[in-house]
């Protein structure tokens, strides 16, 4: 069994700045409809999701960037986050023998962070 970890830190001020400057062009390029609904425009929550996408890319040892919308952060009824992969991200996870993904999000004073752990065969 192989366990891999990815971590990322994203500035909430940068997210706020991109929303102000580019609006929907930024939001719809990076985040899924589910994420946009869950975050309701809150830059802190969006920054945490961007960090989770980048942390997933690192945990999967992606050779290049994956399309951001192929990595979706969801919330269950209790508020706990989880990851749902599609397209290229899902294909890479299968190639890596990934059986499960876990994500944790946090934020504090201008930054949001995420840690992703993958469990797989190799």
């Amino acid at each position, binding site marked *: 069994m192989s366990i891999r970890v990815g971590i990322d830190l994203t500035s909430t001020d940068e*997210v706020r*700045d991109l929303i102000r400057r580019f609006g929907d*062009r*930024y939001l719809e*390029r990076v985040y899924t409809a589910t994420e946009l609904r869950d975050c309701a425009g809150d830059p802190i929550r969006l920054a945490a999701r*961007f960090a989770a996408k*980048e942390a997933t890319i690192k945990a999967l040892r992606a050779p*290049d960037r994956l*399309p951001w919308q192929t990595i979706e952060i969801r919330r269950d009824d209790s508020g706990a986050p989880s990851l749902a992969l599609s397209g290229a991200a899902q294909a890479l996870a299968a190639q890596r023998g990934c059986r499960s993904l876990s994500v944790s999000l946090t934020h504090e004073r201008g930054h949001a962070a995420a840690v992703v752990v993958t469990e797989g065969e190799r």
Partner: protein
Amino acid sequence: MNDTTSAAIRQVLADHARMPGDAHSLDERADLFASGMSSHASVNVMLALEDTFDIEFPDAMLKRSVFESIAAIRTAVLELRAAEAA
């Protein structure tokens, strides 16, 4: 045209990449991520490049390698402008 394009790219980097160094003096092949551009800042750069050059990066070009150096960005910009002019 290459010089004009590179100068415009350097200005976009200076304004949007949030790198600690001077984008105007970077080597064309210098790794922008190693120079301090974060992944999120590269989104900022991508959208600013679209505005500057009136282009749109398709999903297939949203790769780290496309934004890793001034030379790589210039190749992508020229390719997109040529495709849109055709």
